[in-house]
């Protein structure tokens, strides 16, 4: 029983990690039609800036965190103003995010005191503080709890914003039909910067919350982002609930196979692909259009 509970907790934490990264990508795709490949790269860059300020320059934790997020917001606004607006369609914008990803990775590797030690310990005000789970021979760290709570808040916040607020509905309107939304008085030039600034801020926050749990390390965070991409497929890149569900299922499958089927080497790593195949089969059984419409309705 203890082992089972332990597995579920590990799955929940890892699922939160995937969800956090995936939600930012879904937000951008849902509202702009652009697959933001730079999501992980921008997050890592902002994370290293925050780490530099807090760890090397002695800034207090929260101002350092805010500075990292502020950098991501500025980057998002600049990217929207100078790149997104000058490109004609979502396809070319997606490709531009690839360029930004390479550039962000390049900056992280180019600063000598960042990449000298490839994995950095990211500071946290909760370091060393844990909570014992009754019935399980396992303790959850405060950082892990913060991660799970943040995913819940972010999910609820994004869902509320997209469904209930004027800016959220404007984002959806611009994405669904730019011409009609313009006629209805929605100003795309005001909506688009908000989307990009929010997405980059979420990317930065994600990495800063993941790093205390899993170290600030470029390769592993990019690998998490790739897995998060596979998770977004479950929700058709538009549905927030299905994305979180997909992330949780993937993480639980990985945790269960790592603990209960450790002999089957490689299986935990095959789950993202197996999950995609399963989704594809579901889509074959249920027509894709219906699934997408359902996803859009529940976004």
């Amino acid at each position: 029983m203890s082992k089972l509970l332990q597995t579920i907790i590990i799955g929940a934490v890892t699922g939160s990690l995937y969800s956090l990264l995936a939600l930012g990508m879904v937000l951008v795709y849902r509202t702009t039609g652009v697959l933001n490949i730079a999501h992980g790269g921008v997050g890592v860059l902002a994370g290293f800036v925050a780490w530099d300020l807090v760890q090397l320059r002695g800034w207090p934790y929260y101002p350092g965190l805010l500075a990292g997020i502020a950098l991501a917001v500025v980057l998002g606004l600049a990217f929207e103003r100078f790149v997104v607006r000058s490109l004609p369609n979502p396809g070319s914008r997606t490709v531009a995010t690839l360029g930004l990803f390479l550039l962000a990775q390049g900056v992280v590797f180019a600063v000598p005191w960042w990449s000298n030690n490839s994995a950095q310990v990211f500071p946290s005000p909760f370091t060393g503080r844990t909570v014992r789970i009754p019935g399980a021979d396992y303790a959850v760290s405060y950082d892990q709890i913060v991660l799970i709570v943040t995913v819940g808040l972010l999910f609820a916040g994004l869902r509320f914003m997209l469904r209930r607020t004027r800016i959220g509905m404007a984002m959806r309107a611009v994405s669904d039909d730019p011409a009609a939304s313009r006629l209805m008085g929605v100003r795309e030039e005001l909506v688009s910067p908000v989307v990009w600034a929010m997405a980059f801020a979420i990317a930065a926050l994600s990495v800063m919350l993941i790093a205390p749990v899993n170290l600030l390390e470029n390769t592993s965070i990019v690998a998490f982002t790739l897995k998060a991409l596979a998770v977004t497929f479950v929700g058709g890149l538009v549905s927030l609930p299905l994305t979180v569900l997909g992330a949780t299922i993937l993480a639980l499958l990985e945790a269960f196979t790592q603990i209960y089927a450790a002999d089957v080497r490689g299986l935990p790593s095959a789950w993202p692909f197996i999950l995609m195949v399963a989704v594809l089969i579901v889509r074959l059984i249920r027509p894709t259009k219906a699934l997408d419409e359902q996803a859009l309705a529940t976004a």
Partner: protein
Amino acid sequence: MSITDVSTQVERKLQQAAGAATATASLTAVRTLRARLARLAGTGVLVALLATLPFAMHWAGPAFAVDYGLIVALVVLAISVLGWIGEISLAPVAQMGFGVVAVNVCQVHGIPFAFTLPIVVLSSLPISLLLAAFTLRLKGVSFAIATLAFAYMAHKTFFLEYLGTYGAFGGSGTRQVVRPSFVRTDESFYYLELAVLVAVALLCYAIHRSRIGARFTALRESEMAFATLGHPPAAYRFFAICLSGAIATLAGALFVYLQLQVPSNLLLPGQAVLFFGYAVAGGLGSIGGGIAAGAVFGAIPKYLETLTKSGFLTYDLFVIGLVVFVVMMKAPGGLAEIGRTVWRKIEGAAP
């Protein structure tokens, strides 16, 4: 005005028009001659450059750099080929890995080199079939994500075990592929790679300019119209996936012959994102642009690495990222577009 005056004026106008026509004809002839000379000179320079490249670049570093550049060119070409049907594949690095495996299996079974490369190409078919089984119904972003997930699975479940951390085919640390005697040096190996690249590029040109190539374009523009006209989209998509897979697998085979051992971390799925960046910088879908971008982005960083005594390694990703980003922004058609513009200027044609 008398009839004589009118006829004189008409005659004069006709003479002027004839003069202008003669001048235009002369100008066209000069331009045609200039274009022919430019083409001849350009071909000559290109052939001379390709023939002497590993030796001509000795001052900058060993021939390994240009050898690696040609392999990257092949991978980028594999990505570009899928651009014909408007899809982005992030699986070519994984397909390269299967090329590495195929070469090792051939060597273990003592198959002569002459048969190895054809076997490698054939071995790509089952992998392409597996990939196609899941991706044929997908398009756009979903297609790209599915190929990425496939690459991730292949790396974690197979290459990590088979190739090992040090690329010694099982982790013994010493086992490696043996290059055929006629390509023992990196310089001689370059000519083998060049021959393979030229053959693949010619094949791609032939397909792209054939009826199949035209149908690829039609499929990319409107799959519904394509299907309505009675063509099977799945068959054409499958063909493009197989062609791309074969090229990538071939690149993997050459890669292991060049390196002799391929550690599994050289086949990380993230590497495919970088190669896709090269393909975009070259002009997605362009054969020449793809090859040029692959060769340039593959070889130059290696030369700079040697020239700066590995100092460039710290900045390589930043410089490559910056160049790719600038090319994407300033010339959306990539190096292919830049090349066409420059070539038109050299030929003297209107841009």
